[in-house]
């Protein structure tokens, strides 16, 4: 069987083949002494179009192509955690050892160390009847019990015919033998491959995302929460802090495993994560953050086709760990670069372009990607989840563009970053009024709604004041304006450089939000705007200090007392529109 290159255009190569070609099949183009990995993305007659995961220079018409027969897959097994991979699951540190500073093309390395031995603990016995995705035992991988499962592609019920005893085994050792319904015997080891573009569905059922995924960012947890198993997106113009927000989330979010897909963004930012994470200690476990993290890194200067694959590689690993009953958070930065990779390929394929030359199937691919998130009940009864948070980099900062719009249709929460807020150094620069979430947060919705309404009204007064000046604004309006500014300053903004303020536990959020609601709903007695402003300045200053103090420390309690005294001094009742908020609750202060 001879397959020959008949055309090259950018990273697309056309091949005349004999025999069979499968969509998404992996092929190798043999050029000189290099074998370049590529994937079938279109078949037409006896011509297959391949996207090449490497630079295509040097390929010549007539070069031989090998069809592997396998779909583009990742290797799943113990040892994934703590790794830094490129979009095709090549371990980058190992590549660096072999090739030095540069990413030589055509060098592919094993994703997992097949010599390392793992302590295997069987959990089933001979005769057990299992389906794909069910556990036969586990090994200890860092903090977790890494389940050894029946490979996901096996069909029907399998009967275990033999299983190894507890002991040390390496990756490819046969641990068990299982016979399927057709009588075929399968050998099971710790590792198997799974095609990245197919979702893993070996769970019992999908559940509704209800539990809040704590990010320890006040604006998110309180106003625009994310649920375990949910999806959210962060669109924003350049310089608004998308990546920083993702970095902070990757540090503090309450998930078992974090998978970072650095897709087509700056290498420098990945390097920060790469070098800092091993040093950072997770307060929850006392272990390095790297032990719960996988980084898939296909930065902007790495080949574009591998960028397209990288988000799928990441989500496949996320689904794999979900299958062990773990909560996984996948952070993809940025999905626009992934969409652009598809646009580049679509252009090369000379498909009829959609809006802004993105392919017509853009929306369905984005939807399919986010739909791989979800909280599921496994056949064992455990639950596991994959939460996906993707940044979007809209051209010109304009949210009307196709990628943002397609994403907004399918996600459960929208954290829109605003240039104005970033320019004013207000971090996180998430716009509190434009952003939304369909999930439930950690604070009673009535109270958050009230906070939002203050922000909304304050914003209106602020707009008006720009026209009529402070003099033309009534005292009542001015107080609303000050209240909204206050809420923004002390609650919505958060100082990520302050060790205490950087990550706020949910109890603390609930506690301080109650104080804030107290202030927001209070009818306050001021003689004039001057007095009102200076009072709010004083409360704000105290509150900022308060935010920087350790939870329940003496200083914390003292400041809380100061704030409540300041409030008592001026409070003469409750705003009429807030009466219902306190109904049924013992009134504070």
């Amino acid at each position: 069987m001879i397959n020959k290159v008949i055309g090259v255009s950018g990273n697309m190569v056309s091949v005349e083949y004999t025999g069979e070609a499968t969509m998404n099949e992996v092929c190798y183009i043999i050029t000189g002494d290099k074998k370049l990995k590529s994937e079938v993305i279109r078949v037409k007659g006896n011509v297959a179009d391949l996207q090449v995961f490497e630079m295509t220079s040097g390929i010549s018409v007539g070069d031989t192509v090998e069809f592997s027969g396998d779909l583009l897959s990742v290797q799943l097994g113990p040892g994934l955690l703590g790794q830094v991979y490129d979009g095709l699951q090549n371990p980058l540190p190992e590549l660096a050892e072999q090739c030095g500073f540069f990413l030589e093309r055509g060098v592919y390395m094993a994703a997992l160390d097949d010599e390392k031995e793992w302590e295997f603990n069987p959990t089933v016995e001979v005769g057990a009847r299992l389906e794909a995705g069910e556990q036969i035992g586990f090994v200890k991988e860092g903090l977790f019990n890494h389940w050894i499962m029946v490979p996901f592609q096996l069909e029907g019920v399998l009967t275990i015919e033999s299983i190894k005893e507890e002991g040390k085994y390496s990756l490819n050792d046969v641990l068990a033998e299982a016979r399927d319904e057709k009588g075929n015997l399968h050998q099971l080891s710790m590792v198997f491959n799974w095609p990245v573009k197919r979702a893993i569905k070996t769970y019992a059922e999908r559940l509704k995302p209800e539990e809040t995924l704590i990010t320890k960012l006040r604006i998110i947890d309180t106003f625009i929460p994310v649920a375990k198993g949910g999806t959210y997106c962060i669109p924003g113009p350049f310089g608004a802090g998308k990546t920083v927000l993702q970095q902070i989330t990757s540090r503090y979010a309450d998930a078992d495993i974090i998978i970072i897909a650095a897709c087509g963004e700056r290498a420098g930012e990945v390097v920060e994560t790469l070098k800092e994470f091993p040093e950072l200690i997770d307060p929850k476990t006392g272990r390095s953050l790297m032990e719960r993290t996988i980084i898939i890194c296909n930065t902007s200067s790495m080949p574009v086709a591998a960028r397209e694959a990288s988000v799928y590689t990441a989500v496949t690993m996320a689904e794999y760990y979900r299958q062990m009953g773990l909560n996984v958070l996948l952070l993809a930065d940025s999905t626009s670069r992934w969409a652009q990779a598809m646009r580049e390929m679509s252009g090369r394929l000379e498909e009829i372009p959609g809006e802004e030359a993105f392919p017509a199937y853009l929306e369905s691919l984005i939807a399919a990607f986010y739909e791989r998130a979800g909280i599921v009940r496994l056949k064992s009864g455990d639950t596991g989840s994959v939460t996906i948070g993707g940044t979007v980099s809209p051209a010109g900062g304009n949210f009307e563009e196709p990628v943002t719009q397609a994403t907004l249709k399918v996600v459960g929460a929208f954290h829109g970053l605003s240039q104005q807020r970033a320019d004013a150094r207000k971090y996180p620069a998430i716009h509190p009024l434009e952003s939304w979430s369909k999930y439930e947060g950690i604070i009673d919705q009535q109270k958050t709604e009230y906070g939002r309404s203050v922000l909304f009204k304050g914003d209106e007064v602020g707009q008006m004041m720009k026209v009529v000046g402070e003099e033309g604004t009534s005292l009542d309006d001015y107080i609303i304006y000050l209240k909204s500014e206050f809420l923004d300053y002390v609650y919505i903004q958060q100082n990520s450089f302050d060790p205490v303020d950087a990550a706020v536990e949910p109890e603390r959020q609930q506690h301080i939000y109650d104080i804030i609601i107290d202030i927001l709903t209070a009818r306050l007695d001021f003689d004039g705007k001057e007095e009102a402003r200076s009072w709010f300045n004083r409360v704000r200053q105290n509150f900022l200090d308060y935010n920087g103090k350790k939870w329940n420390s003496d200083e914390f309690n003292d400041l809380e007392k100061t704030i409540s005294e300041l409030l008592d001094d001026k409070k003469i009742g409750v705003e009429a529109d807030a009466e219902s908020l306190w109904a049924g609750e013992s009134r504070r202060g």
Partner: protein
Amino acid sequence: MQKVYSKIESISGNVITVKAAGVRYKELAVVGSRYGSSLAEVIRLKGDEVALQVFNGGRGVSTGDEVRFMGEPMKVSFSPNLLGRIFDGSGRPRDGGPELADTMVEIGGPSVNPAKRIIPRNMVRTGIPMIDVFNSLVESQKLPIFSVSGEPYNELLARIALQAEVDIIILGGMGLKYDDYLFFKDTLEKGGVMSRTVFFVHTASDPVVESLLVPDIALAVAEKFAIQDKRVLVLLTDMTNFADAMKEISITMEQVPSNRGYPGDLYTQLASRYEKAVDFEGSGSITILGVTTMPGDDVTHPVPDNTGYITEGQFYLRNGRIEPFGSLSRLKQLVNGDTRDDHRAIMDGMIKLYAAYKESLEKKSMGFKMSGWDEKLLTYGQLFEQEMMDLSVNIPLEDALDKGWEILGGCFEPEETGLRSDLIEKYYSSKV
């Protein structure tokens, strides 16, 4: 063996096609026409049909011209002999000196393994307070200067080239006006840095396509110097011309355009150049400063927009000054903590006051009454613009910080500065 073909099938814009066999993608060829020979690069293979972009342009190319394939991709000579030399966009000498052919290196090579990068930690001092104090340039940073035609961006680049603490300077000019080219040459010669400078200059009168090679050549050379432990500063002006050249080729190739006619891979193309900025673990570094002129002063234009997503901040050059608002060096936090204890405070404090000055100025222009505080701010703002923002100010960082205190002392009471008390005690002296 070199293969020669003498039948050109089609000529369209700067792209020609020939029927040829055994040709490799991205291979170089020489097209000999009666107006002189030109390099050309293979940009598409389709059966036996080979499309080439001709760097000197398609003008004057005849169907009977000879196309000679070289069997290898574009390469540039790399040796210390490059220093002090001036080349054109294709790497041929522009200064009348000898052609260099020793140790040819491939251009547009593979990207650096992220695992081999390090977190940048050295500041590149430039003597320009708006950069050193307010938005420090960091070794291995990639930073564009967003500007509009007519602004002195080339003067700014030349000054940075003269004063930056680096070992090697590489200037890549794309569509550079001939006057500007001469200006760079004169300034760097007079400044005595020519001996550690290499020029790759494509001028506005050269064929447009030739500018496509400039960043790749400049960066390939930079990369080689950097892995020899050299700190290299690459100056690219103007990247918008580079993007426009790309647009021209992709339209000729009948590729589907994405935004305003630019090809869909504009981001990738720009990123693969800017991402060459790197600090090698245990070796040298490449810092990139590029000029991006914004057509119509519109930052949402595809070129500045995509650039902004790639680079680590940006400088806005407006009215001959680096704007304090909008300009940002994302890496400055990595270096400005250990310069002098008042560096960050001065950086934030002076900008906040300058922002307040802008508000007062606006109020004044709308006819509102000026308070005593407003008057102070107005004095401050003017001083700040004259003594800090003006591009002619040329002082080291420490002097600039002292200057900052001098301005603050001349305008405000200590508590009005909004700075920390311990710093005020140490540095503030009143001259009100």
